[in-house]
């Protein structure tokens, strides 16, 4: 059994979970859609986009990024549920590559991310969001989102292994996810925030991906001429890769140490 086959079988397992317990994915789908509607229509009328442009066109790319971010919760919970159960003992006592649990989860997360992106595209179009610069740039933007999701999968896996308890994952992720996405350029342009908060928002790693995909979609509000905004594209690659390099080995080590 190769690591690739094992990873694929394990990814199939996680995707079957989605089919058999669709409640979870409904929550993960409805949250971003709600954000588009609430921010787009309720707060949107009072929102300005620096440099002009429609707020909902500014908002939708941010919600793409936010959705990737909230995926940490799904990954962490899924892994923690496994860790809490004897099923990991069975995996570990079988002659299969040990990497499969992690690679399978990350592969399944990529498929989920694609589904979430598709749902958001379908939700964005009727509220006025468009990609203006052609299909290749649309695909490049989706690629950046998937890269971000891959990095956040790593974080989720590590968190799920450390927490060992699904409730604990939710307790850690959700109180963090909201401020981390709000203090970024997802909903509001950093130029409109008080000075220091604006700086934090500009440097927030998830702002890099948001600005980068706004550029690639041709959406408004790609921001000030600050350094992180001006280098959003490379940063949208560097931040996730950095996260994978730092957190990935932590997750793997943690899994190995189960035998201690």
């Amino acid at each position, binding site marked *: 059994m190769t690591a690739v086959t094992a990873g694929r079988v394990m990814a199939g397992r996680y995707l079957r*979970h989605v089919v058999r*317990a669709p409640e979870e994915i409904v929550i993960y789908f409805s949250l971003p859609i709600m954000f588009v509607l609430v921010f787009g229509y309720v707060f949107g009328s009072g929102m300005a986009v620096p440099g002009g442009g429609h707020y909902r066109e500014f908002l939708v790319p941010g919600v793409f990024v936010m959705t990737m971010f909230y995926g940490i919760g799904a990954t962490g919970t899924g892994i923690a549920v496994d860790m809490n*159960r*004897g099923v990991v*003992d069975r995996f570990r006592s079988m002659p299969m590559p040990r990497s*499969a649990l992690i690679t399978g989860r990350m592969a399944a997360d990529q498929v989920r991310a694609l589904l979430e992106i598709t749902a958001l595209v379908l939700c964005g179009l009727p509220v006025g969001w468009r990609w203006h610069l052609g299909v290749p740039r649309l695909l490049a933007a989706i690629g950046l989102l998937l890269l971000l999701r891959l990095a956040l999968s790593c974080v989720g896996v590590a968190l799920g292994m450390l927490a060992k308890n699904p409730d604990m994952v939710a307790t850690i992720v959700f109180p963090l996810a909201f401020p981390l996405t709000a203090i970024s350029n997802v909903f509001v342009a950093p130029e409109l925030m008080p000075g220091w908060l604006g700086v934090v928002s500009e440097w927030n790693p998830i702002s890099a991906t948001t600005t980068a995909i706004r550029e690639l979609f041709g959406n408004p509000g790609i921001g000030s001429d600050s350094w992180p905004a001006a280098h959003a594209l490379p940063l949208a690659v560097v931040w996730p890769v950095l996260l994978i390099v730092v957190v990935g080995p932590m997750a793997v080590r943690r899994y190995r140490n*189960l035998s*201690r």
Partner: protein
Amino acid sequence: MTSTIVAEGLRKRFRGGAVALDDFDLTVPAGIVHGLLGPNGAGKTTAVRVLSTLLSFDAGRAEVAGADVAGDPRTVRERIALTGQDAAVDDLLSGRQNLVLFGRLQGLSPAAARARAGELLERFDLAGAASRSAKDYSGGMRRRLDLAASLIRRPAVLFLDEPTTGLDPRSRNEVWRAVRDLVSEGTTVLLTTQYLEEADQLAARISVVDAGRVVAEGTPDELKSALGADRLEVVIREADRLDDAAAVIKEVTGTVPDIDPDQRRLRVPVADRVGALTAVLHGLQDGAITVADIGVHRPTLDEAFLTLTEKVPA
């Protein structure tokens, strides 16, 4: 036949400092059920987790199904299966999906995995519930599914960690039957249990585990006699007749009883429960010794462990 499980001087200390295995020795010949009997925290589960490659160990040597546990865990994993206390199945998947998943992860093709899943569902009487989620199974069904998952590749050695804890008697009997069938097909089973009766029913040999080591070993019959026979207990009314009562008991049973003067109680091991009880009672009445209470008690497992651990030099 050669030994299928050999453990020599296994030592395992957890990071918190607790010593779970302390010079643990075990030898299990092929083709039998070997019971590990012991109270909670004795180290039974740790022993199983070490032998099934789930836990590393600090010292000693272990060999399972002809492969070295520390040096070649992969080969060990190819030859074993594990059914733990907490059913090791995927709750969200159906019974059939579980078995197909574990079959695929063990290298079966999709078609072969489906075929094997079908066979096992039939064999463990789960065909009717095959498409229900495992989380909706009863305790007994889960344990059967768990056992089925362990048998996908017909392991040489099966580790069963407290397979019937929390099961009702009927489900327990079903699990026992499945274990007996397996052994008749040539699998070696290492069974941990807290229940003397379970070990008695299933195991050809038993190791009694306490404080991380094996403190006694033998066939169930050998152990039962070592664990202590039934005890006859007599409480009399008058403390000044204790010596007379002891004399009567010695005459009837051939053993000098333990005397507890404060409680006016005499205790003696007996082989023949009813016979000894009747004879002692008659003897005491003939001697005009007033009996306040009399009864025969089976040793509890706790008492048996106390007996056994006391024999071990510290």
